C-alpha cells in the first residue's frame, strides 16, 4: 500500500515539477510548485516524518510560496512573459547536461540499501521507539533542544537578520 502511494506521490511531484519549469506564466509555475510541495509532504508522511510534512505544508507551501506570490503580484508580472523561456541551443544543452547528471546519479543510487553508511547510524528502529514515546513533534524536539540547541539558537538569529535585511532591501527610498 505504501509503495503504491509512494509512486503516486512521486509521479505527482515529478509531473508538477516538470510543468513548473515549463510554464510561461510565473503564477502558473508557482501554483505547480505548491502542488509539488504537497506531494513531497505526502512522501514525508510515508517516511514517518509527520512533523516535517506538516511544516512543509504550513511553512513552505503556505508561507514561502505565498510570499513568492505576493512578490509576483507586486511586480505586476504576468503580462509580457513571452520571452521567459530560453529556447534552441540553450534548451538542448541544458537538457543534455541535466540528463547526464540524472543518469549518473540514478546509476549511483542502485543498491543504496546495502551501503556501508548504515553502520554508522542508530538505525530505523530508534525512530519508531521515540515516535511511540513522544509523539510526532517530540521526536524532532528532543534532538533539536538537546544536541542541536546551538544551531537552533543561531537559526533564530539568522531569521532575525533575514527579517531586518529584507526590510532594509525592499524599503522604498524615503
Amino acid at each position, binding site marked *: 500500500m505504501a509503495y503504491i502511494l509512494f509512486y503516486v506521490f512521486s509521479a505527482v511531484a515529478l509531473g508538477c515539477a516538470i510543468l513548473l519549469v515549463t510554464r510561461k506564466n510565473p503564477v502558473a509555475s508557482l501554483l505547480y510548485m505548491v502542488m509539488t510541495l504537497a506531494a513531497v509532504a505526502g512522501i514525508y508522511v510515508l517516511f514517518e516524518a509527520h512533523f516535517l510534512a506538516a511544516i512543509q505544508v504550513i511553512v513552505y507551501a503556505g508561507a514561502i510560496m505565498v510570499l513568492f506570490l505576493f512578490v509576483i503580484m507586486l511586480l505586476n508580472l504576468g503580462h509580457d512573459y513571452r520571452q521567459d523561456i530560453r529556447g534552441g541551443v540553450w534548451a538542448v544543452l541544458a537538457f543534455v547536461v541535466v540528463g547526464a*547528471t540524472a543518469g549518473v546519479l540514478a546509476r*549511483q543510487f542502485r543498491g543504496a540499501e546495502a551501503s556501508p553508511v548504515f553502520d554508522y547510524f542508530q538505525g530505523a528502529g530508534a525512530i519508531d521507539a521515540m515516535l511511540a514515546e513522544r509523539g510526532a513533534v517530540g521526536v524532532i524536539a528532543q534532538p533539536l533542544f538537546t544536541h542541536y540547541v546551538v544551531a537552533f539558537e543561531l537559526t533564530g538569529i539568522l531569521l532575525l537578520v533575514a527579517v531586518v535585511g529584507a526590510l532594509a532591501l525592499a524599503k522604498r527610498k524615503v
Partner: protein
Amino acid sequence: MTLPLTFFALQEGIEIQAAHGPAGEAFSPFLPGVIILLPLLGFLLNGALALAASRRSSAAVREGTELDFLEGGRRPLTHWLPTWIGPGVVGLAFAIVLVNFTRMLGAELHEPIIRHYWTWMNTGAFSVDAALQLDQLSMVMMLVVTGVSFLIHVFSVGYMGEDPGYPRYFAYLNLFVFFMLTLVMGASFPVLFVGWEGVGFCSYILIGYWFTDREKSDAGKKAFVVNRIGDFGFLVAMLLIFTTFGTLNFVEIFEAAPETLAYGGGLVTAMTLLLLLGATGKSAQIPLYVWLPDAMAGPTPVSALIHAATMVTAGVYMVARTSVLFALAPVGGLSVALIGAATALFAATIGLAQYDIKKVLAYSTISQLGYMFVGVGVGAYAAGIFHLMTHAFFKALLFLGSGAVIHSMHHAFHHTHNHADPQDMRNMGGLRRFMPITWLTMWVATLAISGIWPFAGFFSKDEIIWMAGARAAGSYGGWFVLIWVMALAAAMITAVYMTRLMVMTFHGENRTGQDEARHLHEAPWVMWVPLAILAFLAIFGGWVNVPLEIHDSFLGGYGLLPMSEWMHEWLHPVAAVATEIQAANAGDFGHLSPFGGGEVMWAVLSTLLALVVVLATARVVGGFRILPAADSAAAEGFKKVLFRKYYVDEIYDSIVVQPLIRASRFAWKVVDQGIVDGIVNGLGHFARALGWIGSLFQTGTVNTYALFLAIGVLVILGVVAF
C-alpha cells in the same frame, strides 16, 4: 696624451740600454714604437684643430665657397698649424726610420727583431700581442712609406692650401700613415690586418674627402666595399693558418711551415689563394681593381700616396711577407703571377683610351701593380719589392706632377669661370711653356716607367720580366711563357700610353683657351721641390739593385757606375727560406733565359724597344689633331670599348650589384616585413583572438554561470562514479 708617449719613449730607452751589444753585431732598434705613434699624434692634433675649425669650415664646405681669410688677412691657427704638424710628424718618423736603417746596415741581421708592447687578446688557445717586427723587408717598406709620405705631405701644403677642410685633410693623411706603418711593421697577421683595414678605411675617407659631391662619396664607398670583398679572403686565410699552426705570429708560422705543410698540398694552396684574394682587393688586381679608377675622385696627393706608393702596395708586401707559404704552393704562386700579368696587360690597354689625366695614371698603377705581382709570384721577391720601391718614386712623381698641372688648370678655369674639366687632357696641350719644371720631372718619370736605361724602372721591370721568362724552363712552363709574353706586351703598351699622356698634356698647341692661358703658371716651390726630389730618386733609385752581369757590362759602365746588387743581398735573409724551398722543389732559375741569350742582351733589347716605342708614339700622337673636350667627338668602335673600360663596371653591376639589391629588397619586403613581422603581429592577433574567445563566456547572465556550474558538477560526478 703625452703620458703614453713618454711611456713608450722610456720603454724604448730601456730597451736600448738592455739590448746594446758590441757594435756591428747586434741591431738594437731605435724607438720603433715612436715611429708609429708620431703620425697618430699628428692625427690627434690635426683632428683637434679640425674640430676647432669646424664651424667655419663646414659652412664653406657645404656652400662650396672659399674661406674668408684667403682673400687677405691672416690665416687662423687652425689653418697654418697643420702645415707644420702634418708633414712634421711624418718627417720626424722618417728621420727615426733612417736612424734605424743605418743601425741595421751596420748590424748583420739574420732573425727579425720583435718588439712586444702589450698583450692584445688572450683567450686560452688564441693569443695575440701588439708587437712590431723589424727586419730587412719591413725596413724597406718603412723607408718608402715614411719617405714618400713626407714628400707628399709637403706637396699637399701647396695643393690643399685653399681647401676649407685643410686641418681635416692632414688629420686623415696622418692617420693613413699610422695605419700603413702598422701594416708593414706588424709582427703577426692580426696586427697586419689592423693596418690593412685601417688603410682601407682611410682610403674611404680620403677618396670621399669632398663628400658634398655625391659621385665622390660614392667612389669612397665603392673602394671600401670592394676592399672588403678581398678582406673576406684574407680573414678566411687567417683562420686556416690559425687552425693549422695554432698561432698567428709571422716568425713562428714561417719557421713551422716547411715541416707542417706539404709542398703543393691542398691546404697551403687554399691558404695562398685566399691570401691572393685579399691582395687583389687591396692592390687592385683582377677582379677587384674596379675601385681604383673611381678613387681618382679624391685629391691628387691622396691618389699619389695611397693609390700609387703605399696602400696598393700592401698586397705585394703581404705576398712577400708570406713568401714561405707561396713557395710551398706553386699553384698559388703561379696564380699570383698570372693574375698580375693579365691585369698588367688588361689595364694597360684601357689606359690607352682614357682622356682624364688621372684615369690614365690610375690604370697605369693597376698595370704596374700587376708587374709587382708577377715579381713576387714567380719567386723573385727582391725584384717585386724593388719594383714596388721604384714604382713608388716614379708613380708618386707622375701623380704629383699631374696634381701640379691640375692645380694650374683649375686656377685658370676658376679665374675665367670656365666649367670645363681641368683634368681632361684634351683641354691641355703645350703646357711645357708654362710649367717647365713639371714638364721635365714628368718626362723623367715617363722614361723611368717605360723602362729605359738608366732610369729606375728599367732595372726593376727588366728583372721581373727576366725572372718570369726564366721559370718557363721548369714546371708549368707554358704558363710562364704566357706570363712573359703578357708582361712584355704590357711594357710596350705602357710606353705608348705614357708618351701619349705627355704629348697631349705638354706638347703641341695649347687648347686651354686664350683667357685661361694667361693664368697658367708653374707650381709654387712647396710643390715642385718634392717633384725634383722624386725625379732624382726616379733616375738613380734603380741603381741599388743591378744584377752583377749587367753591372759589369756596358750598361753599368763596365762596373764604374755606382750601381750594386745591394737590395737583393739586403732582402736575402727575408726571402731565403722561400727561395730554398723553391729551388729544392721547382728548380733553380734566374740565370739563363730559355729563349737563349744572356741578361745583357735582353736588357739592351728591351730598352731599345722601349725607346723606339716612345719616339714613335710621340711622333704619331704629335701628329694628331686634338680638339678641346667640349668639341671632341665621342669615341667609337674598339676605342669606345677601351674608353668604357671593357664595360666591366656595368657587367659587375648587372651580375652582382643588382641581384644583391633585389635579394635585399626581397629580404626586406617579404622576409622581414612579411614573414617576421607577420609572425610577431600574428602572435599578437592570436592572443587577442584567444582573449575574444574567452570573452564569449562572460555573458553576464546567471543562466550561463549556472550552466557551467552544472557542467562542473557533472564532471566531478563522472570522475567519482567511473
